């Protein structure tokens, strides 16, 4: 455990744990409302923020937070007032965001594509003291929202129309989900990189679903998987000198494959237990009631 002696590894591990918790915690709501790729879209938009940060010599993390929050709100508005083709509008937002990022970073005096690469694919070893502060603050916000409002967010993501009739502020909650997802993207950006962020939001949830029947269990298992793979990936990248972001994502997909393999016998056992618990069904043969009235006998 000598890696714990290095300051940069301590920072990297702290950042990794926070990402492992927050990414699946937000991702589960996106998966529930079938917007699994929203994180990917926000990641693209965040690139413009990183580029602007370099251009204006501001913190790229905070600038990316600002721009991706704006982008996420815009996506949510497109979803509401989807008069034009929603997917086309979103595509323009994604690619505009990516192109803007590349353009701004090349215009910046200190920026180069090498800087951008560390944001695209993650660069744990260069996580600075101020990055860690930003990540801690943002992660606290994400956890507060995803845990504190879990019942409200569950209701809205499960059945939006019903949620509106129970008087929940559905639009505000949808906006909050979008903003929280945007914040999570920037939290995870330094660890797994903008292009791989969405994997950590979606794949742990998909893996957890293989084992769980309830939303609460899915949430807990997904976060556990998230923390395990981010820690495991960070330590592996320290020893093997491989990129941490890619390692983490490949580990997550590995977890999904293993859990899917485990789930099949589990589901069979559950089905058998359920069948045994239920009273025997009607006899398999058809029985026709003796005196079923026919149409002819009914007076019209």
């Amino acid at each position, binding site marked *: 455990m000598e890696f714990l002696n290095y300051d940069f590894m301590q920072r990297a591990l702290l950042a990794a744990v926070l990402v492992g918790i927050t990414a699946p915690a937000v991702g589960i709501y996106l998966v529930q409302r079938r917007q*699994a790729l929203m994180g990917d879209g926000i990641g693209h938009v965040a690139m413009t923020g990183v580029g602007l940060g370099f251009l204006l010599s501001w913190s790229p993390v905070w600038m990316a937070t600002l721009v991706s929050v704006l982008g996420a709100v815009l996506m949510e508005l497109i979803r509401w007032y989807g008069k034009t083709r929603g997917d086309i509008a979103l595509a323009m937002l994604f690619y505009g965001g990516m192109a803007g990022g590349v353009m701004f970073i090349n215009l910046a005096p200190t920026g180069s594509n090498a800087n951008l690469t560390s944001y695209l694919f993650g660069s744990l070893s260069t996580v600075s003291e101020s990055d860690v502060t930003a990540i801690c603050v943002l992660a606290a916000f994400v956890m507060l929202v995803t845990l504190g409002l879990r019942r409200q967010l569950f209701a809205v993501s*499960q059945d939006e129309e*019903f949620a509106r*009739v129970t008087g*929940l502020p559905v639009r505000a909650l949808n906006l909050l989900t979008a903003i929280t997802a945007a914040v999570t993207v920037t939290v995870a950006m330094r660890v797994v990189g903008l292009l791989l962020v969405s994997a950590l939001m979606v794949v742990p949830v998909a893996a957890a679903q293989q084992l769980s029947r*309830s939303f609460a269990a899915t949430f807990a298992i997904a976060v556990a998987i998230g923390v395990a793979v981010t820690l495991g990936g960070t330590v592996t990248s320290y020893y093997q000198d491989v990129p941490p972001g890619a390692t983490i994502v490949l580990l997550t997909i590995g977890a999904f494959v293993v859990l899917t393999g485990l789930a099949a016998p589990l589901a069979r056992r559950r089905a058998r237990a359920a069948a045994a618990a239920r009273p025997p069904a009607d006899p398999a043969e058809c029985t026709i009631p003796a005196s079923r*009235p026919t149409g002819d006998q009914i007076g019209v």
Partner: protein
Amino acid sequence: MSEPVISLRGVRAELGSRPVLRGIDLTVSRGEVVALLGANGSGKSTAVRSIIGQVPVSTGEIELFGTPRRRFRDWARVGYVPQRTTAAGGVPATVDEVVSSGRLSRTRFGVFRKSDREAVRRALDLVGMADRAGDSVGALSGGQHQRVLIARALAADPELLIMDEPMAGVDLASQEVLASTLREQVAQGATVLLVLHELGPLEPLIDRAVVLRDGCVLHDGPPPKAVGQHALPGHDHVHPHAAHDAEPIRTGLLS
């Protein structure tokens, strides 16, 4: 029969450019059970969805418990059962979790107390799904799923129940459970507005039927008697409704 719980006056609504409601008047008084009948495309679902604010109304007035709907905030008094859809969330959820979301309107900031848990349990008992509380809703049959949606609406102890086609695609056993659940709610003084395709097993409960046709009220009075094939016990009214305007209203009132 004094205080109107639902009141629609001259309500018009369009979906796109097509007028769906063309001046509807409808009043449901406290304790009444009213069925909204009509062929597909007659506007009965749209009428219900305009009451709960899911369809914008171009002209006319809607009041809930005497308050204009725009200013109505007391949604815990309304239990809504949407038309059952096959679309479920992308994440598994248990029966208990889904029914609990119906109780949110009675909680402060979504914090569940003991009384809230009891209300959820009561609602599950009412529809006979208490033993399935821990099961995933994805593993339920259509009828069981419908019972869960009704329990979700009942979890808030509503005074007014609004149900959109609660019997559609529901097996016979679940239909009986639903009918007895509804009977119990009515006995306790609930007001009910139901969208129905046909009266079916709920017929004895219904005080009044409102029949819509092409967005207008065609009949408002005692429930029409079923005739012909439709009077057969256990008749399951399933037709392919290709062209709604070709579909006559099978109420027997027109003959």
